[in-house]
C-alpha cells in the first residue's frame, strides 16, 4: 500500500524541496518505492516552491499528490494555498515561526512547530526544514532517524560537511518536539 502522500511547501530557499528529497531518499533506503516531484517553471519563479513526495510499499501509479496525508507548510502563502487540499483527517504541520495564523479546518490534526526558533537556538538559522523533518518522522513513523542521518552525511560533504552534525541535531530536536505535541 501507499504509506504517505506528502506535500511540502515554502518560499524559495527555505529548503522545502530538499526536505522532500530526503524523505524520498530515506524511503528508498528502507526498501520502499519513492517519488519526488517539484513544482517548477512559472510557479517556482514567483517565489514559492513546493513538492510532492510519495513513499509506498507498492509501485506508485502517479507522482502528483493532489490530496496529501501529510502537508508541511513553511510560510503563510503555502498555508493559504495548501490547507484546503489536505485529505480529511490528514495532518498539517505548520512552521509557526513564520506563520502567525492558525489553520481554519477542524477535520485535520494540526501541529504548530516554531522551527526557525529551534534552528536559531542551534545556531543554524537555515535549518528550520530539518526541524520540521524531525517532527514529520515522529508523527508519521514511516521512516527512521538513522536513514535521514545517513543521507545528511552523504548530502553535506566537502565545504558543507561542517553543517552535517548541526543538521542531524536539528532533526533530533524536531523528533523530540514531535513527541511532546
Amino acid at each position, binding site marked *: 500500500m501507499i504509506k504517505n502522500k506528502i506535500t511540502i511547501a515554502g518560499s524559495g530557499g527555505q529548503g522545502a524541496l530538499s526536505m522532500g*528529497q530526503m524523505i524520498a531518499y530515506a524511503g528508498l533506503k528502507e526498501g520502499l518505492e519513492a*517519488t519526488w516531484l517539484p513544482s*517548477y517553471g512559472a510557479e517556482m519563479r514567483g517565489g514559492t516552491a513546493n513538492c510532492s513526495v510519495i513513499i509506498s510499499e507498492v509501485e506508485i501509479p502517479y*507522482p502528483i499528490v493532489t490530496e496529501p496525508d501529510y502537508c508541511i507548510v513553511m510560510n503563510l502563502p503555502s498555508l493559504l494555498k495548501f490547507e484546503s487540499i489536505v485529505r480529511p483527517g490528514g495532518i498539517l504541520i505548520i512552521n509557526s515561526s513564520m506563520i502567525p495564523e492558525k489553520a481554519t479546518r477542524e477535520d485535520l490534526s494540526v501541529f504548530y512547530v516554531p522551527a526557525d526558533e529551534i534552528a536559531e537556538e542551534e545556531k543554524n538559522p537555515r535549518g528550520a526544514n530539518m526541524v520540521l523533518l524531525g517532527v514529520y518522522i515522529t508523527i508519521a513513523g514511516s521512516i527512521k532517524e538513522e536513514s535521514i542521518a545517513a543521507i545528511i552525511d552523504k548530502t553535506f560533504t566537502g565545504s558543507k560537511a561542517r553543517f552535517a552534525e548541526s543538521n542531524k541535531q536539528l532533526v533530533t530536536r524536531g523528533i523530540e518536539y514531535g513527541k511532546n505535541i
Partner: protein
Amino acid sequence: MTKVLMKGNEVIAEAALRAGCRAFFGYPITPQNEIPEYFAREMPLRNGTFIQAESEIAAMNMVMGASASGARAMTSTSGPGYCLKLEALAAMTLTRLPAVVVVVMRNGPAFGTMNAAQEDYRMNGNGGYKVVTFAPSTIQEAADMTFEAFDIADQYRNPVVILADGMIGQMMGSVDFDKLPAKREHLPEKTWALHGRGQRNGKSEFLFIAEGKNHYQEKYDAETILYPEIKANETSVEIVDVEDADIVMCAYGTAARMCVAAVEAIGSEVKLGLIRPRTLWPFPYETFGQIGDPCKAIICPEINIIGQMIDDVRIASAGRWPVHHVGDSATGPLTPDGIIEKVKEVWKEMKV
C-alpha cells in the same frame, strides 16, 4: 547495484553515457535542463564532448557532424527547441545518420507555459520520414529506452526520438542501472563514418545520399524495406485487461500513469482496460484487435488540448468503437480526476 533515486532528466543522461554516448550538443530550455547540466559535469570526466551551442539549430547540426564521424551523439530539448531541430533531423533520416534526440515536452503552442505536457506527438520535419519514437512512463523506462535508443539508431542507421513529458524529466523516482536492457549484438559497422583527412588514410568524404543511391531510391527503400523492418521488430506496447473491459483507455507517458490511478479509483465500478504504447512510432495498431466484445468505447487521455495521438487511436479503432478525447481543462493540465470524470460520463452514455 541497487536502486537509486534520481531525477528523470539525470537518468536519461546517465543511461546515454552507459550506452556509449560521448558527444552531446544542446541549448538550454525548461524542463530538460538537468540533461545538459549532467553532461556538462560528466562528459569531461568520461572522455566525452559537451558543447552548449549558440542555438538549437546549431546544436542539432553538431549532432549531425558528430554522427557522420561515427560517434554516438545526442541532443535534448523541449517543444520550442524541437521545432528548430527538425530540419537537421529530417536531413539525418535522408542521409541515414543515427542519433538520439530527447524531447522533454512542455505546454505549447510556442513558448506556452513550462508545465509538463504531451504536445509534440505530431511534430515532424519536412518530407516523408519516420523515426522510432519512445514514450517512457516511469523513471526506469526512461533509462531503459534511452539506453536501447542508441543501439536501435545504429542498427537501422536512423535517428531515434525519446518523447518524454515534463513530469518524467522533473520527477525523481527509483532506477536500477543493472536492469538496463542487454546491449544489442552484431550492430553494423560504421564503414561510412568519416575519420580523419585523406592524407592520413582517413575517410574524408561523406556521400550525402548514402551508398550513392538517388534521392527517390533512398526514400523508396525506406518505405519498402527499412520502415517495415522497424515496424516488425521494434513496436512495443503494454496491454492491461483489454479482453473484458467495458471501456479501454489508450495513453502514453504520464497520462498512462494517470490511467492507472483512475483504474484504482473506479475500476470496481467500470471494467477498464489500458493500451499503453511504449513506441509511438511504430504505433501498435494491431494491439486493438485484442480488445474484447464487451468494449463499447475508447478514451484517449492526453496532456494537451484537442488531442494528438488520438488520430492514431482512431485509425487503430477503424470505426469499431467511438473514440473520446480527454485532456487539459480550462483551469490546468489533465489530472487523474479528469480521466475519472470522463470515464463516468462515457459510461453513463453507454448505459442509456
